[in-house]
């Protein structure tokens, strides 16, 4: 698999994951948990562009950083954990926090200068135009 992911800053991640799986077992299969891969991404493509989408709630667009080399995209980000004063107690803590780094292989090499990102309602959307020289060329055959 080309996908690598790392999670930093949250030692409870594994515990949460286990608990989520247990909950899932006891809750039956009508309701689903989010996948354990963080962040989970989907990649969409046509012949000119690829789009990466990821559900990453509670961030700002500036919290993300993306870099591209040819057909490999590295996405990093950080979500701060809730601050608690000594008068508050975190009674339930299931949401992911901390730093992440994710590397994904794209369907084709992309132009790093033309990448655009939007962030709406917690969904990150990165549009990645295919490199000009990688686009399929149409060769017309001359009739003599």
């Amino acid at each position: 698999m080309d996908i690598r992911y790392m999670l930093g800053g949250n030692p409870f991640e594994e515990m949460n994951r286990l608990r989520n799986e247990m909950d899932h077992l006891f809750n039956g299969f009508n309701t689903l948990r989010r996948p354990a891969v963080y962040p989970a991404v989907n990649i969409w493509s046509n012949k000119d562009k690829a789009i990466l989408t990821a559900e990453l709630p509670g961030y700002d667009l500036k919290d993300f950083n993306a870099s591209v080399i040819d057909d490999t995209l590295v996405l990093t980000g950080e979500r701060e954990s809730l601050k608690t004063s000594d008068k508050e107690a975190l009674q339930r803590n299931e949401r992911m926090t901390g730093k992440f780094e994710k590397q994904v292989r794209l369907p084709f090499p992309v132009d790093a200068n033309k990448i655009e990102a939007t962030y709406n309602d917690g969904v990150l959307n990165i549009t990645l135009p295919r490199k000009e020289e990688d686009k399929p060329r149409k060769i017309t055959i001359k009739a003599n």
Partner: protein
Amino acid sequence: MEALKNKIQKRDSEAVDTVERTRSGKVFVPAVDILDSDDHLTLYADMPGCEKTSIDITLENNVLSIQGNICWQPPKDYELVFNEYEVGDYRRAFTLDESIDREKIEADYNNGVLRLTLPKLEPAKPKKIAVKFS
């Protein structure tokens, strides 16, 4: 500490599922943080891809239900070539204990996170009895 933990308890989805859905598609249990302070609880639920108008919060008897319908649309004229997550609605319910002021629950939705503020009722103040020693 046990008392705190019992303030909000998750109900298993079976109880909620007795209400049948009319929408098709997947339903997810949103991840939740709950912060407990002296005078209120704050609940944060990760529900990306909804809109303020697509989220319903209902309180019936002691059950607080959160239902969020997904508004996100897949990009047009693109094919899904790599798939790690699925998109769907969100649903989760909690039982509230007696200390929550049901009239004053507030909600807002920002960057895919639903935040509920649940103020606590003024606790009955313990009576102080001054004892004078002569």
